[in-house]
């Protein structure tokens, strides 16, 4: 009987001492958490997507509370969240530009072709190492879905050989932008015009490779009244912060590779 008692006493004693030390330590060594941080954390969507560049919503909330982070970085939360955060911090709300991912390639099976049949590992990163993935156009989407694999919102589908983004599901976190080995995915403002081609080849070569590529003809530049379009390296680019979405360039483009990014797909 005494043996059992000793055993119980010793284990219970160790537990008690550990408990007392821990609770004393948690009081004595407590790190004060800014009450603002918890309030901000409650406003954030809690998706932990990392679009803000911090390690999850907790990281962004703590950075905001300490005043070292820019406001309005939370794209999934949008303007509503930015407004609430600004109220907590007592500053003017920074507006969040609504963005969506867009694939700068039109090279579906009907527009372009491949030069060989690729049979390696089914990832774009590996395929890209072998003659840029085997498409006729070396800037084209490989279509093996590295972007779809990293998407947490299930917003990217591979259809007809190229990736397409579901703009209702896309939260604009930009994970696919870094995942694409070709670098042909871009975050574009909603309701802006957008050139869905990445080919920096000369116009004649682009035309030979693909029936829907940008040939750098400058028609869109002339059509734009706001100076939002520029052509560089035989490729048109539209600055979505200037673009009003009037659609003049869409009409002007002979290759049909400019479209307006309406919020639904």
């Amino acid at each position, binding site marked *: 009987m005494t*043996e059992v008692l*000793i*055993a119980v006493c*010793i*284990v219970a004693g*160790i*537990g008690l001492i*550990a*408990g007392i*030390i*821990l609770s004393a*330590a*948690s009081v004595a*060594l*407590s*790190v004060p958490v800014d009450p603002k941080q918890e309030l901000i954390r409650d406003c954030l969507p809690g998706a932990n997507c990392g679009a803000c560049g911090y390690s999850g919503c907790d990281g962004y909330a703590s950075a905001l509370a300490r005043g070292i982070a820019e406001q309005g970085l939370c794209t999934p939360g949008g303007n509503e969240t930015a407004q609430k955060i600004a109220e907590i911090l007592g500053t003017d709300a920074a507006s969040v530009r609504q963005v969506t991912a867009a694939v700068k390639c039109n090279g579906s099976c009907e527009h372009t072709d491949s030069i060989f049949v690729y049979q*390696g*590992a*089914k*990832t774009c*990163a*590996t395929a890209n190492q072998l003659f840029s993935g085997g498409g006729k156009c070396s800037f084209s989407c490989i279509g093996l879905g590295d972007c779809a694999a990293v998407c947490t919102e299930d917003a990217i589908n591979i259809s007809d050989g190229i990736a397409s983004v579901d703009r209702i599901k896309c939260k604009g976190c930009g994970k696919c932008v870094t995942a694409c080995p070709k670098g042909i995915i871009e975050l574009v403002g909603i309701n802006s015009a957008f050139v869905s081609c990445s080919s920096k080849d000369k116009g004649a070569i682009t035309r030979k490779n693909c029936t829907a590529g940008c040939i750098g003809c400058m028609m869109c530049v002339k059509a734009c009244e706001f100076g939002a379009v520029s052509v560089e390296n035989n490729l048109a680019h539209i600055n979505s912060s200037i673009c009003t979405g009037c659609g003049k360039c869409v009409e002007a483009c002979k290759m049909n590779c400019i479209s307006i990014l309406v919020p639904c797909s």
Partner: protein
Amino acid sequence: MRMFIGILICSILTENFVLAKFLGICPFLGVSKKLNTAAGMSIAVTFVMVLATAVTYPLFAYLLVPNGLDYLQTLVFILVIAALVQLVEIILKKFIPPLYEALGIYLPLITTNCAVLGVTILNFTKEYTYAQSIVNSLGSGLGFMLAMILFAGVRERLDSCDCPKFLKGLPITLIAAAIVSLSFTGFSGLADRFF
């Protein structure tokens, strides 16, 4: 000194915790996907292993053994290690925030890691002295780190190879782990011969 080097080599190579004793397989498979997370986890494990040994050794030798309570070893060790890790977490958060953030989630994860418990118990099975136990724990932690970092490299290569569909994911990872483990048996007898 010679003996300490022997213990160190032995615990890192010939009796590697993961690849020869098969302890701590959960973090070995769970956090070895990327090199930096693997390194973070193994640093945390090494740190806790040494600390746990330093505390549990006197507790066992001077409290449990004199009272004839050897059989409570596992229970008491788990209790002490769990409390210790919590305490270390609180202290790190207060005084060394960068280290706390670097270890991050891995520190609380290893409170009940079998590799940490294993090293504290094995120190007594092998009848090591206090200093020898500390060296053995350090070596075991470094061995864990070696296995984790080696395997993180293997897994990064596995991602870009075209393996049959039915082997994708965990199956091919386990096969690769078996091969790495097999190669470590080549070190057996190394410590006995030289030290």
